[in-house]
């Protein structure tokens, strides 16, 4: 018995100090660690894919006319990074930040506002100075009927009543 105790003592002495000096030293995270999510409003096209797959519904998209307001309730985020998986533009990604403890809950509520320009024909919103500006498109980027752009003249046919229109479009129609 004494022998085994001695053996145990030798093992314990050999192990040295195991305690991390953590809050006073940075702690490295393992590879592929998923921490707090971050996002880039310049890349976002407000497609709503992230809000669709988010299990705790911590990403909420609100369409207010031509503006898409995206709220991130990070207090209930489970850091599954499914938003990162579905995002076609890589506008949202998990960081290595895990030190998210806070005395104020308002620190865990992020917000992003993206302006979506609306289609002159159907009144629906599409992405603004993003994918369309990236490639040469034959779509109509003129201001409205009768106006020319590099592909020709926009047809003077009135736009189809398809979706309820935002105030910007309604004002544009009044001016015509």
């Amino acid at each position: 018995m004494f022998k085994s105790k001695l053996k145990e003592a030798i093992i314990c002495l050999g192990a040295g100090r195991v305690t991390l000096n953590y809050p006073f030293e940075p702690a490295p995270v393992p590879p592929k660690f998923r921490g707090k999510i971050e996002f880039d409003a310049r890349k976002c096209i407000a497609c709503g894919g992230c809000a669709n797959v988010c299990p705790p519904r911590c990403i909420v998209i609100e369409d207010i006319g031509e503006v898409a307001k995206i709220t991130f309730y990070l207090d209930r985020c489970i850091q599954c990074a499914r938003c990162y998986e579905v995002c076609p533009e890589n506008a949202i990604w998990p960081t290595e930040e895990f030190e998210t403890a806070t005395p104020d809950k308002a620190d865990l509520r992020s917000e992003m506002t993206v302006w979506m320009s609306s289609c002159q024909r159907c009144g629906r919103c599409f992405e603004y100075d993003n994918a369309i500006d990236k490639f040469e498109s034959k779509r109509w980027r003129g201001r409205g009927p009768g106006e020319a752009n590099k592909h020709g003249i926009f047809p003077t046919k009135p736009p189809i009543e398809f979706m309820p229109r935002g105030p910007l479009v309604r004002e544009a129609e009044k001016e015509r």
Partner: protein
Amino acid sequence: MLTDLCKKMFGKSLWLFHTNCGACNGCDIEVIDVLTPYYDVERFGMKLVGSPRHADALVISGSVSRQVAPALRRLYEATPDPKVVIAVGSCAVGGNIWFDTYNVLGGADKVVPVNVYIPGCPPRPEAIVYGAALALGLVPKKVQAQHEQHLPAGFDLDEYLKKWEGIPAVTR
């Protein structure tokens, strides 16, 4: 101000009372992990106690269900003043995926005032140590809300949102 008060009040050692208010045991295991020699939160004088009457701090894990809410309230009242309430895990902070379920209140702050929120599902043991150190005022707060906008130049967002105020969300 809170940190200064904490430094004064809890300068020596903080005794924790850990309550499971409907957690899946993930956060509980991480809290136990924090007490092991590897993370060793007893460096700061913290240890688990068996009764709320001995405790300085309540550690709440789990989405607070309706069944457990009165018990949690009694527990809070049984803890002597001054006290710190630490919510561990996304469930206790914001309700996690049960935030709008019928039997869950969605966060411990609906029942008791919470001083430190530690989000994560479950939070890393380091994150819990960080939260504990934050409660003691040893480390500064790092997280900040991220507010980003991508709007055309000269676009007045507030003016625009005012136009939509009366219109119901379905027709937007």
